[in-house]
């Protein structure tokens, strides 16, 4: 019994009914004593009879699982796999497991399917797993290039701005992640890997900023005020709209812009890799909102109110800081000649139109009528995110 023999007894006892008796033979000095103790602990009667022990199965193992409930179904393909609302007592149990009655209740604020679910959450998670990249090897940090001082400064300014936005993009889903009932495991996993994506983005933007400089550049109060409205937003779906659909959606345009106009190969590589992750985050935000709105069309009003409220909160601020805007113009211009700047300025204007256009299209896909979608797209923060 001090080497695992109880498993043999346990398996044999499972074959007899409570109240029925099993004969156990053993050898070695006092071999029966630990068996008798084990039986006592498990509520089985036991009696030593010369060279063997008679064990009568007790009723308690069955009692433990009386009233146990199955926590949905493991496979999403199974009928009724997901509960509309996951009970607190399913807690951290694997979906589909038998949960003992009397398990402690856990408080998960996001325990309703409508509040978090997306039909393609599992597919997006698998896609995200397959698309992970290592900043160390995916980017050729040793490429030798020297930019004019003003252009390098512009790149560092844009990187500084990107880092603070990525900090928000990491921490906002992380704050919701801890509130998602694990019953909706695909969403939980997707959010976790989304956080990992953002952590990587923080790393690469920081490394690019520090490639030729000791520190990043300027962080404006207006930018941070804009991000703070996201950071403080308590609602998962509203965050999905403001952060993923509108903010990260606009970032997809911005990263495309950097891919096209960045003055050095490292920045272009970074933009190319990051944009793929961001597109996936936008896809999840869209899918979740489509799922929720299909079941709760009235929620569209709450989304509209969230956009308007954020606009009102930020209406007195500076929005995108001037340094970031100027840096983008300079990157698009490629030089400080008037003709170059004119062209750069026009490209940034085009970028902003494309961003608004993208936001409008996504809002239309979410069921907003075209004119309202256009107006709401224009209300989006000038900070882009």
């Amino acid at each position: 019994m001090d080497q695992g023999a109880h498993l043999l007894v346990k398996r044999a006892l499972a074959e007899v009914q409570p109240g029925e008796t099993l004969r156990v033979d053993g050898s070695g000095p006092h071999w029966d004593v630990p068996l008798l103790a084990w039986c006592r602990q498990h509520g089985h009667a036991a009696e030593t009879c010369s060279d063997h022990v008679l064990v009568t199965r007790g009723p308690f193992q069955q009692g433990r699982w009386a009233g146990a409930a199955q926590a949905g179904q493991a496979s999403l393909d199974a009928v009724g796999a997901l509960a509309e609302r996951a009970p607190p007592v399913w807690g951290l149990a694997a979906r589909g497991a038998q949960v003992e009655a009397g398990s402690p209740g856990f408080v998960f604020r996001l325990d309703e399917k409508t509040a978090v679910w997306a039909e393609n959450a599992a597919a997006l998670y698998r896609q995200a797993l397959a698309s992970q990249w290592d900043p160390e090897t995916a980017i050729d940090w040793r490429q030798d290039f020297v930019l004019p001082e003003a252009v390098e400064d512009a790149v560092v300014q844009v990187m500084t701005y990107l880092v603070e936005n990525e900090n928000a993009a990491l921490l906002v889903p992380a704050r919701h992640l801890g509130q998602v009932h694990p019953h909706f495991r695909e969403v939980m996993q997707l959010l976790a890997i989304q956080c990992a994506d953002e952590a990587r983005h923080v790393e690469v933007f920081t490394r690019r900023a520090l490639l030729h400089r000791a520190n990043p550049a300027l962080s404006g109060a207006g930018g941070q005020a804009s991000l703070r409205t996201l950071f403080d937003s308590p609602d998962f779906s509203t965050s999905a709209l403001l952060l993923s659909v509108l903010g990260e959606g606009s970032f997809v345009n911005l990263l495309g812009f950097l891919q096209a106009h960045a003055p050095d190969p490292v920045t272009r590589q970074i933009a190319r890799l990051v944009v793929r992750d961001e597109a996936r985050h936008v896809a999840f935000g869209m899918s979740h909102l489509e799922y929720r709105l299909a079941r709760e069309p009235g929620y569209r009003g709450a989304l509209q109110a969230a956009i308007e409220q954020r606009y009102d909160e930020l209406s007195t601020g500076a929005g995108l800081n001037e340094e970031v805007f100027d840096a983008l113009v300079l990157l698009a211009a490629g030089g400080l000649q008037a003709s170059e700047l004119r062209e750069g300025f026009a490209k940034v204007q085009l970028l902003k139109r494309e961003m608004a256009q993208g936001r409008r299209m996504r809002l239309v896909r979410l069921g907003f009528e075209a004119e309202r979608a256009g107006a709401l797209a224009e209300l989006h923060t000038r900070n882009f995110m």
Partner: protein
Amino acid sequence: MEDCTLVLGAVAYAPKVVTIWEGFKAFFVQHGLPFDYVLYSNYERQVEAQFAGNVAVAWNSPLAWVRARRIGAARGLEVQAVAMRDSDRDLRSVLAVRSGAGVATLDDLHGRRIGFGAVDSPQATLLPLDHLRRAGLVAGRDYAPRLFDVLGGKHGDHVGGERDAAQALVDGAVDAAWMIDGNYLAFSADGTLPAGATTILDRTAPFDHCNFTVSPGAPEAQVRSFTALLMEMRWDDPAVRPLLELEGLKQWLPGRTSGYTALERAATDEGFYDAAGRITARDYRY
């Protein structure tokens, strides 16, 4: 107005005791029995409180039962054991030795070092000393006893002494060590006793462990109600099961006092209590 709350005494041998009795208190109150509990730091004070009228029932160790019975008898009073756990019946202590260390019989223990638990542990000290004495082996004369005296006054409920003795056996600091059969299993499961490293050389006769001891003069109706409610607790009730698991039982059984004979003898022969329940053990701190 007369307070009809039944007050129970229990010894705080581990932090879980608070969880257990808070849970049971809620159960009793829910089922209509005004109930409260008082925690004592040791069984000696608890038994004395029974005779001072401070508690109506005490959740007593077997040694505390022996003392309560003797104090009662000396005063012409009879104490009663009303209930016990299913896991309190027919326990044994085992004497473990290192496999292949050349200790195959009790005779081989002459001149060796034997590890025991706390000085007041029925299962790891008093009953084993009695068992060896009856087999002709007297501590200090035939072998060198080594007490692993952890948390005096808890009557061995604290597992530390037995664990220390088991560890000393594995380390070679003693040649044999006593522990209750359940702890032999537990130490095997958690690796304190590595698989196959030890063998059981000997065992005590079966003995009984704790019981609910009713104090002299306790209100009978409330004690009856308390006992009936204990018997109503069901393992398959998910609200109660966690408490039963913490307390280490599947069901409460009526108390019996037939399993304390060896401990009565040991308490006298080893000089722990006198016939009137006075503590006679030297160097006993609690």
